[in-house]
């Protein structure tokens, strides 16, 4: 607000006009960055002072403080206006991001005042994350410093497209055009690849107010805008409403059984009732019924608006889901490549489980690989095994479940994430997604009811039970283990239920009477059925001596889901091997109800496979099992399998 408007404001008509103007202003968020002594706080103090936002009592308080801590002699030290915390007031440095507000007749501004110290680079990234423009301060006496390069790099990393190069303290260089021109040329030389859309260099003196708000008569050679003129007029591409529609669902709104809405702020795009939408991750689609707000239903809503959507169909949507239109969907993947800024004293170690918050979704994740870190001063790519505080790297990240996202460059809200420690809950880092890592990324999920078939299809296999039966010591577990390893190496998802192991847990209440043996098999059959339902190739390695129980298991499962494998080894052979020394004990009467000795073993009549351990090695027999599965179409994604 300027003085004339304020004076007129007492006049109601002028006031109403003033308010109407103020109400229509838009908002520009920018950050200021620079080295310790570049005069950043002084510049912001100057902006507040010149735009008449310093009150008399604040001014009186600064005058008092200036005498105590001031660094500019008898003048008022404007930096004291903005250095907030007591500690830094005494140290004369800025140690945290501070937010300042000022307004002119054209725009309202939120300034993130960020520190220049090397160890506080994370704060600069924080300030930059919500800014559309960066004012990079340069001390005219010193020119481009290492920190200037670092700040410019971080500004570009965070995707800021508009930069003001504030060449400050030009008064101390006799308002020299040569000094200014050289600094600008040096800056443009290294910042050429940073993708800035506008770069406005302005010579100024924050201390004396030259070219901050008002034009300076000491700089007649400079024809460009003053800082405030530029901030008021620079065109920031805010047109997120033209981009594809994205709504990150924050909260499911259910006041009663008749209303189910999905509340969130539109990240990008435009939406109208009747538009076809879908949930990115599940692929389920519906149509927008209404755009509900406290101020009434809307005919249209766009990026930036906080709304509640209701849909025509009852589809499953919860917090963290992303609603898009059907014609342009976000990527869905559980792996992506990203730029990561590490913000913690605690090192990043690849492989360690972390939490990642992206949009309204928080998932377990780990950094699988640090591709390289970038030296923020030289911009060189360096190899790295871990990341330390304030380091920046290109990494691959794997998530526990797929999430919907867009590359950060296309959509900041859809491509930004923070990294959280699972135990301490501290925010450890911040990242920007470059792209998804799976080819499957662009093959979208189709809406299907998730069932045995979909789970199995996702794993590229037909789920089945490989039921290994045979005498104790026949080689069932040895072969089953080998088979499982082979299947795993082919990328299949398996599980091995071993008789001895199951008896230590699920079936530890059972003995070896016939009744207990039946119950033992019944339970294992039920468990393997659940596993087949989960889509797994399930290996069961049990003596399972009775035909009836094996038949029961076969009937419990679907057609072609039960593969009976008879591990055939004659009693005299197993007794001679006696790996666990059990036959000796059974013969001595120390173990009762031992299969083959004093409890019968009923060999299968029509097994799918018979494995003769007397003529082939376990390795050969395992190959035989895998080949059987390939031939019979159980392993869908293993056409390359050769014996």
């Amino acid at each position: 607000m300027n003085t004339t408007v304020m004076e007129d404001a007492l006049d109601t008509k002028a006031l109403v006009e003033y308010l109407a103007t103020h109400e229509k202003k838009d908002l520009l968020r920018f950050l200021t960055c620079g080295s310790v002594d570049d005069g950043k706080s002084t510049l912001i103090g100057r902006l507040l002072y010149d735009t008449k936002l310093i009150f008399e009592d604040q001014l009186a308080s600064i005058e008092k403080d200036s005498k105590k801590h001031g660094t500019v002699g008898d003048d008022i030290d404007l930096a004291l206006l903005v250095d907030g915390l007591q500690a830094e007031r005494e140290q004369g440095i800025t140690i945290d991001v501070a937010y300042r507000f000022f307004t002119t007749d054209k725009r309202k501004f939120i300034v993130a005042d960020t520190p220049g110290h090397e160890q506080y680079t994370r704060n600069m990234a924080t300030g930059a994350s919500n800014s559309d423009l960066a004012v990079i301060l340069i001390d005219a006496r010193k020119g481009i410093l290492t920190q200037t390069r670092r700040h410019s790099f971080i500004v570009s990393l965070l995707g800021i497209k508009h930069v003001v190069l504030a060449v400050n303290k030009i008064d101390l260089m006799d308002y020299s055009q040569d000094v200014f021109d050289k600094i600008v040329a040096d800056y443009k030389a290294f910042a050429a690849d940073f993708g800035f859309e506008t770069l406005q260099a302005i010579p100024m003196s924050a201390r004396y107010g030259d070219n901050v708000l008002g034009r300076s008569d000491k700089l007649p050679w400079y024809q460009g805008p003053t800082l405030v003129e530029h901030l008021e007029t620079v065109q920031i591409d805010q047109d997120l409403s033209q981009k594809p529609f994205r709504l990150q669902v924050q909260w499911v709104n259910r006041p009663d059984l008749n209303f189910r809405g999905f509340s969130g702020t539109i990240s990008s795009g435009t939406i109208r009732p009747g538009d076809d939408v879908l949930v990115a991750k599940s692929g389920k689609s519906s149509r927008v019924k209404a755009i509900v707000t406290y101020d009434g239903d809307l005919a249209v809503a766009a990026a930036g608006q906080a709304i509640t959507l209701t849909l025509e169909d009852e589809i499953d949507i919860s917090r963290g889901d992303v609603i898009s239109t059907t014609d342009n969907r976000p990527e869905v993947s559980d792996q992506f490549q990203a730029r990561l800024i590490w913000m913690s004293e605690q090192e990043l170690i690849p492989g360690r489980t972390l939490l990642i918050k992206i949009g309204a979704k928080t998932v377990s994740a780990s950094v699988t690989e640090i591709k390289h870190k970038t030296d923020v001063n030289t911009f060189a790519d360096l190899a790295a095994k871990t990341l330390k505080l304030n380091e920046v790297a290109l990494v691959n990240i794997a998530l526990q479940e797929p999430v919907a996202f867009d590359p950060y460059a296309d959509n900041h809200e859809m491509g930004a994430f923070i990294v959280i420690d699972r135990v301490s809950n501290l925010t450890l880092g911040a990242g920007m997604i470059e792209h998804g890592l799976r080819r499957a990324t662009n093959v979208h999920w189709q809406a299907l009811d998730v069932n045995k078939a979909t789970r199995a299809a996702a794993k590229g296999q037909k789920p089945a039970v490989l039921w290994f039966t045979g005498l104790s010591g026949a080689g069932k577990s040895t072969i089953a283990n080998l088979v499982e390893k082979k299947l795993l190496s082919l990328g299949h998802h398996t599980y091995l239920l071993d008789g001895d192991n199951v008896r230590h847990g699920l079936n530890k209440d059972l003995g070896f009477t016939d009744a207990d043996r039946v119950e033992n098999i019944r339970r294992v059959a039920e468990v393997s059925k659940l596993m087949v339902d989960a889509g797994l190739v399930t290996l069961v390695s049990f003596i399972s001596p009775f035909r009836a129980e094996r038949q029961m298991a076969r009937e419990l499962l679907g057609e072609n889901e039960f593969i009976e494998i008879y591990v055939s080894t004659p009693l005299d052979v197993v007794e001679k091997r006696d790996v666990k020394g059990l036959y000796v004990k059974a013969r001595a009467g120390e173990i009762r109800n031992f299969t083959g000795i004093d409890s019968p073993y009923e060999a299968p009549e029509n097994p799918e496979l018979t494995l003769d351990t007397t003529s082939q090695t376990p390795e050969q027999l395992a190959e035989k099992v895998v080949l059987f599965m390939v031939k019979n179409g159980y392993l869908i994604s293993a056409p390359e399998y050769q014996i």
Partner: protein
Amino acid sequence: MPVTPERMTHLKRLEAEAIFIMREVAAEFKNPVMLYSIGKDSSVMLHLALKAFYPSKPPFPFMHVNTTWKFREMIRFRDETAARLGLNLISHTNQEGVANNVNPFDHGSSVFTNIMKTDALKQALTEHGFDAAFGGARRDEEKSRAKERIFSFRTANHGWDPKNQRPELWNLYNARVKPGESIRVFPISNWTELDIWQYILMENIPIVPLYFAKKRPVVQRGGQWIMVDDDRLPLNPGEVPEMKSVRFRTLGDYPLTAAVESEADTLEAIVAEMLVARTSERSGRLIDHDEAGSMEKKKREGYF
């Protein structure tokens, strides 16, 4: 009906930001509460909460920490508002402080505020087990608040350590706390006093009548007008309350809140007065004058 989307003016953007923050808190915390101080910022916060969850009601209770020294008109307004909107309103008072007759006169504003406000707030948060508390603080109010996070982490003892706050990037707020720990949330951090008034005007939000000028009984102390709201205010020898047209720029405990002489009895007039005001809002709050850096100190102790 408009066929093009609404333009996002700065007020619309601030409104959307506050709604986003409120929804995050409602979704991520087990037991949030909105602190309701009855002032104009609280009125705006309440209005934003109504918008954020519509057609649901705000899914959390509202809590007023009552020092027992609030203006009577504030309490009346509070109760009317809660009844009109059907809010779940909790009023908490430090009973120990009441039992010990802690008051601003005998104990001084600093001790009084510490016991009846800061301690009372901590008591109430602990008693109800709230893991998130919305406050209406703004970054433009005071220098130390300019660095406050939107999600301000507090230890199990409700302590605030400026060195140990979580970095806050984009709109990704880290809402994770361990049992006993909590977060103070400031959805209107980025609003200025002018934004608040303009929004009240634009949205026609009810506020306590004390903001409007009216003839009220006041006494002058230390160059500031103090309203004699009830007979608990001890009068100095020879001090006689006089009727003056005054209003309040901030509201709190009446003996600690100075009035300004004013004729502004409409919202427009208040905004006009604000635009030409040359003293900052907080100068009406006597607690800030106690010592340099006093707000920062209070914050470390757990005051908002």
